[in-house]
Every structure is written in C-alpha cells, then in structure tokens.
C-alpha cells in the first residue's frame, strides 16, 4: 500500500512540475514567443478612492469592473457641445480597453512604491514640465514638428519600452532566437530588436527615442536593460537619464508576467516598479501603418490656420 501511495505521490509531483515548467525554446530557455495582450482596466496608478487598498477581493473586483466599464463607455457619458465631448472622439465600438482587472487583482499596476503612485518629480523635472506646458499653450499648432510624437505617427506612448495598456490595439508579439529577441507592438508599429548575450550598450553619446535595449537570461526570466534614451520619448516626465529594467517571466502557459523598474534620478525622487500579468492572445496582430492615412495632422493645422485668418479679419 505504501508503495502504491509513493508512486501516486510521484505522479502528482511530476504533473505539478510539468505545469510549472514553461515551454522551452531549442536553446533551453523559456519560449516567450507568441502574441500577447496587456489590455486591462487596472490603472497604472491607484485611484484615490482605493487609497491604502492593495488588492480587491474577487467580489470587489466584479463590482469594480462593472463600474469602470460603465464609466469608460463614451456612449454613456456624453455632455454635448463641450470640448470633452469632442475629445471623446467616436463610438465605444472602436475602443478595446479590456473589461477585466489584472489577474493579481491589484488596484494599481504600480507595485512599488506601496501607495501605487508615481513618485514626485524632482524640482528640475517639475520646472521642465511647467516650461513645456507653458510653451505648448502658445505654439502647439505652429507646424507638424510641434505636434506630439504620437500624432506624427512616430512613437506611441504605450508601445514601449515600457509597454503599457492603452485604449485599443493592446497587443504585442515576441519573436525569439538564441541571440536576439524582437518585440513588435501593434501600436504604433515598433519592432524592438534586443540583442542577447552580454553585448555592451551604445556609446553614451548615441541617443535614441526608445533607447538602446540589451537582454540576458536570469534563470527563467528574460531581463532587458534599456538606456541611452534621448529624452524625446518621455515616460510621465522621465528624461534622457532613464534606466529601464524589464523582466519577462512565463508563469503559466497563458500568462507572461511583465515587470519593469524605472530609475531616473534626475526626473523622479525615487525609483518605481510596475507589474502586469499579460495574457496569451489568439491573434492575429495587425499592421497599424499610422502614416498611411494620417489626415488628422493636415486637419489640425488647417483648422489652426483658418482660426488665424478669422482673427486677422
């Protein structure tokens, strides 16, 4: 009898071990390849009405999800003839923000600091942001160069690094070889090629909008270190000194735990960390081809010129 029980326990242990072992690439590292979705209604920062609460119970999560989905529904929240109504753009059918909180049921994607909020900006970063906002108020429609990088179809604020949920097209694809990993974000079109194997970063005078990413494996986790940012692509006030550390761990067949740590001592008063359990997507992932039909850029500037003509009369 004892022998039968021992065999039974061994089989159970083997099954459990198999479930915890991620699929492997030919080189033995976990296979992270596939299309993944980071759509979630969990906000980056903890809402004020959930201050002090780290996680929701399953029951609370159900209620919260309904509240947020209703609140986000642009068709339910219209105040006609207001700037905000114009900013809401189009029917809810075009949006795809997700309807669920993250599987950890945390109330914010930020896990450090414990309050779930982005740390305060340094005084010099506050000054930079203030000067920028003042300048925008006066020059935002001078020409295409003054519009945001997103409107110019150059860089999308959630495409990464780091990758965050956005209003729609929350998908990215990972391609993996022994020597390189490629992360292709549906929004806005970026394919980030990440060399593995310990190659050094670019020289410090070489700066790029999305930085310079280098990866390596720490046991079963892919760690990607990104530096050499130009500062043009800013994460909530970050500057060219941003050092970003992303970690990708396939914690189950359908879940990729994506974490990133933000360290930018000239922009933030302390480092901060985000965790997003990302889910496997059936796909397909589509081309976005933002430049293809970016009529809005012409319309925005034409509108500004028309307003100037009226003022001149």
């Amino acid at each position, binding site marked *: 009898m004892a022998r039968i029980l021992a065999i039974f326990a061994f089989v159970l242990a083997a099954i459990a071990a198999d479930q915890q072992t991620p699929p492997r690439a030919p080189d033995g590292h976990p296979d992270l390849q596939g299309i993944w979705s980071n759509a979630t209604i969990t906000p980056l920062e903890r809402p004020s009405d959930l201050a002090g609460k780290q996680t929701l119970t399953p029951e609370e999560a159900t209620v919260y999800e309904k509240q947020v989905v209703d609140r986000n529904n642009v068709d339910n929240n219209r105040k006609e003839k207001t700037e905000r109504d*114009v900013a809401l753009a*189009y029917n809810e059918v075009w949006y795809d923000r997700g309807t669920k909180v993250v599987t950890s049921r945390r109330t914010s994607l930020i896990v450090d600091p414990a309050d779930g909020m982005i740390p305060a900006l340094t005084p010099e970063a506050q000054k930079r942001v203030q000067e*920028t906002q003042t300048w925008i108020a006066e020059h935002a429609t001078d020409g295409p160069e003054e*519009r*945001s990088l*997103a409107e110019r179809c150059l860089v999308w604020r959630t495409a990464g690094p780091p990758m965050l949920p956005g209003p729609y097209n929350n998908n990215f694809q990972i391609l993996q070889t022994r020597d390189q990993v490629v992360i292709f974000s549906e929004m*806005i079109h970026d394919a980030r090629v990440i060399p593995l194997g310990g190659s050094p970063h670019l020289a410090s005078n070489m700066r790029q909008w999305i930085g310079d990413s280098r990866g390596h494996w720490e046991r079963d986790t892919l760690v990607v270190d990104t530096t050499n940012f130009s500062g043009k692509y800013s994460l909530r006030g970050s500057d060219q000194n941003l050092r970003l550390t992303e970690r990708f761990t396939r914690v189950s067949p359908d879940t990729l735990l994506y974490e990133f740590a933000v360290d930018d001592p000239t922009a933030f008063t302390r480092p901060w960390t985000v965790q997003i359990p990302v889910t496997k997507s059936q796909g397909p992932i589509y081309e976005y081809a933002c430049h293809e*039909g970016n009529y809005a850029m012409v319309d*925005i500037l034409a509108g500004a010129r028309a307003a100037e003509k009226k003022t001149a009369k």
Partner: protein
Amino acid sequence: MRRNLAIAIASVGLLSSAAPVGAHHAFAAEFDATKPVKLKGVVTKMEWINPHAWIHIDVKNADGTVTNWMVEGGSPNTLLRNGFTKNSLPPGTEIVVDGYQSKDESNKMNGRDITFPDGRKLFVGSAGTGSPDSKSEK
C-alpha cells in the same frame, strides 16, 4: 530652439496620457465643439485605414444638391479583430452621423455617434449592422 521645443511637446504629450480616452490624436484640436452636425447620408466609400478609418457619405441638401462628407472613426484594427471586414459597410448603406465639424470648416466631421436611420448602432452586433453574424452584409 524649435527643435528643443519639439522635444518638449513630445514629453508633455506623454505626460498627459491619463486623458479621458487616449485616441491617437487630439480630436479637440481637429473638430469644433461649437459646430455640432447631424447628417443622414449614403455611404460612398469606407477608407479602412490607420490611424483612423474614414467613412465617406453623400448628403442630400435642402436645395437638391449633394455634398460629400468625410466622417472620422477609430482604428480599424479593433473592428477587424471583432470580425468585421472592409466589406462590412458597403456603398449605398444609409446611415445617420452625429458629431462635430472640422475646425477648418471643410466637409469633415467625427463620427461621435453613428447609427442606422431606425436608431440601431452601426458596427454593433445585431442583424443588418455589418456584424460577423450578418453574413448578407459581408
């Protein structure tokens, strides 16, 4: 100087990503809140393009003439993922569009609310709306 300021504006655009919805571009910079428009027209073309789809409609004016309007929607990728295709809104379909005219006063508007004349919402999955279940529309 201009280059530095361009860098700055990029930063603020990213800083303000907690905006209500986060469409690809600032619709409030393109369309005029003081010019609400409601039009009934017939689809002549659907531009199934990114960053935003554009629906072209012919609108009959009171004097019998016809004006072609362009209506801006969202990213077609979302609808493709839900099973719609570029043939889901064929020319000849009559629709009603509620939105705001562009600030340059050309015949462009955003598709803030798009319905069929009987009130059913466009692209929402009931029969006849171009939904994947509505094979006749595809």
